[in-house]
């Protein structure tokens, strides 16, 4: 069992940290529940490696606590934490057979040989390594080696969480999806908490049930891949998830909604009321390129944009347009007609998001089916 609780956790590399920018990890309270498949996703420099090292025990946090099933482990070294780690590069003994590699952690713990045999075979079976057990590890391909690294973590029955640090970096692109599938199956079979650290949205979204997106030392959203796409909780998530990311436009409040330059975007009354209560001038609207509606014919109710250029990506096109002084991108399916010169668009209410101080603002009464 392992629930990992990061309690009032913060970390600064400097001894006399005072202001927020001194912190690589800003104060957070976060729980990785037992048995979950999670990802920690963010760009380089966001603090995800620092957080990973704090969880594994390579680094002791300057503030707050790391609790494993309620027990503080701040000062417990990595090898005593019942956590396994899988790194970018496979960590195996080249001079040993696959079997001996898998058996190594168990023999180290003086496990009776009978149990070693049965456990190694069980793990090898799950990872589809059985035919390779007698092979020397040095003769394996990169993906086989990485499976052995994973097996060495799984083989110890006292391991209750596995941390992955960009584990597919060295794997051939064609083989990556097979390993992703294996990881998911292993997770279902072994009921182990798994946290997968990556900067790659595909890796994170494919593996994880829930993703923690990190930005500037904070977790700005903890949600399912679908929530990150359909309902980004922070402007950064909108920008970072999706290619291209969300269109984000700075706006100011006006009668009946918000505006930029001469363009007015109407909002529902409840939202206007909500906005009126918030003092910040940092207001943005956001809509994904997939969700902007493009009209086939000119439409007087729609916004009229100038078409700047079209990127033909084969399966779809990205229209780059200008609405007033704002550039917008919209995704158009392959079969759709490409407008000439002017593009008539509208923003479906469901997909138009409002951000104040970078965080999503929503009208609470209208629960929109729990964002399923």
């Amino acid at each position, binding site marked *: 069992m392992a629930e990992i609780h990061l309690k009032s956790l913060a970390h600064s590399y400097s001894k006399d940290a005072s202001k927020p920018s001194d912190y690589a990890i800003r104060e957070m309270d976060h729980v990785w529940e037992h048995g979950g498949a999670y990802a920690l996703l963010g*760009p380089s420099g966001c603090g995800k490696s620092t957080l990973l090292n704090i969880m594994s025990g390579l680094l002791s946090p300057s503030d707050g606590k790391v609790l494993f099933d309620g027990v503080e482990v701040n000062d417990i070294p990595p090898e005593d934490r019942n956590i396994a780690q899988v790194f970018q590069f496979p960590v195996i003994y080249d001079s040993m057979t696959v079997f001996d590699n898998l058996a190594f952690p168990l023999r180290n713990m003086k496990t009776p040989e009978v149990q070693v045999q049965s456990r190694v075979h069980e793990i090898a079976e799950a990872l589809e390594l059985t035919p390779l057990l007698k092979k020397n590890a040095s003769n394996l391909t990169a993906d086989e080696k990485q499976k052995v690294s994973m097996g060495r973590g799984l083989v110890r029955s006292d391991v209750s969480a596995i941390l992955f640090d960009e584990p597919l970096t060295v794997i051939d692109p064609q083989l990556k*999806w097979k390993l992703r*599938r294996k990881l998911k199956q292993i997770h279902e079979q072994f009921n182990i908490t798994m946290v997968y650290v990556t900067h790659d949205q*595909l890796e994170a*979204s494919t593996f994880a049930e829930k993703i923690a997106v990190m930005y500037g030392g904070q977790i700005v959203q903890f949600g399912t891949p679908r929530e990150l796409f359909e309902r980004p909780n922070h402007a950064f998530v909108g920008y970072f998830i999706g290619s291209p990311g969300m269109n984000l436009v700075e706006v100011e409040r006006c009668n009946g909604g918000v505006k930029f330059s001469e363009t007015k975007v109407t909002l529902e009354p409840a939202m206007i009321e909500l906005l009126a209560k918030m003092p910040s001038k940092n207001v943005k609207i956001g809509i994904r390129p*997939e969700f902007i509606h493009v009209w086939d014919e000119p439409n007087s109710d729609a916004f009229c944009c100038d078409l700047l250029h079209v990127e*033909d990506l*084969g399966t779809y096109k990205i229209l780059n347009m200008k609405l007033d002084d704002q550039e917008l991108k919209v995704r158009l399916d392959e079969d759709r007609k490409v407008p000439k010169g002017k593009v008539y668009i509208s923003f479906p209410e469901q997909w138009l998001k409002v951000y104040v101080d970078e965080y999503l603002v929503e009208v609470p009464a209208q629960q929109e089916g729990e964002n399923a």
Partner: protein
Amino acid sequence: MGEYNNMSLVLENLGYVVEGETYLADINLKLEPGSFNVLLGRTLAGKTSLMRIMAGLDKPTSGNIYMDGQDVTNVSVQKRNISMVYQQFINYPNLTVRENIASPLRIAKTKESEIIRRVNETAAILQIEPFLDRHPLELSGGQQQRCSMARALVKDASIILFDEPLVNLDYKLREELRAELRDLFKERNAIAVYATTEPNEAMALGGVTTLLHEGRVIQSGVSTKVYRQPINIEAAKLYSEPAINLIPGRLSNSEVTFDETVHFPLDHELSKIPAGDYVFGVLPSHIGLVPNRDDDLELSMRMELAEISGSETYMHVVNDHFNLVIQLSGVINYHIGDPIKVYLPTHKLFVFDQAGNTIQTPSQAITR
């Protein structure tokens, strides 16, 4: 920039063999002035070898290279007016960003006032003006690569070679730099050559794509045309991501059979093809979870895995005879092992003969 640069680059019957191993063979290409050329191929396809020969860093073992009609096969790299950007961020660590960018101009003994003007102009385009007085290692990876790109762009090179320049950057930065690069070359007359392993990057860059496979050119032309009308299976596989689905089948006088299990009647286009065994191709984005037309083929499959790119879902589905990948917009929830019905548009099939040559592409069928 670039009023003298109106030159073309012609590669004629190029071959490159080192110690009995063939790196390149029968390369015939003409790169037009002001064109943006993408070399698309897998690792070890010969992209870097070809670029090094274009640059003059290596000499071909056969064939000739002409720049603006002049044979330059034996002309050294220093005399070719070429810039190159590599995967690794290569900068002079002991020089400031400003001096890094200025270095090619200093070598060319450019006037100081001109150096200042050009460095500032190039730094502005690549958005690194705030860092001009810093040293490269104080910058992020993206900024370091911008610095090495600025150095390549600051001199008025006739040919600028990019060898997978964005591969070590994270994908958001790649998106941005790719768009900047494309815009940058709209204004220039230089020939740009850009090597990549990624079909989607090649499409995004536009221009002309040359497909390299095992040291040979298999197809070269306007990117969108090569994508829609690959000349053979290898070209179709190279230029699709996720890769095109391929299903072996038999075409009779009245119907198509996939793996002897699935049958559907011939439409007008398919009926023009002689009966026989073929490989049928369908792009992952053309298969749907709901039928689009009456003649779409319904297939009962099983979910293997869905890869989610963030904004798209790539579903891997299987049945007892073949597997398919389906590309869908948005994030789709699923469970491994779930039964699932998918719809394959029979009017969007690629048809390849047993030798792998293209017999029909769907764009041809559509335009007619």
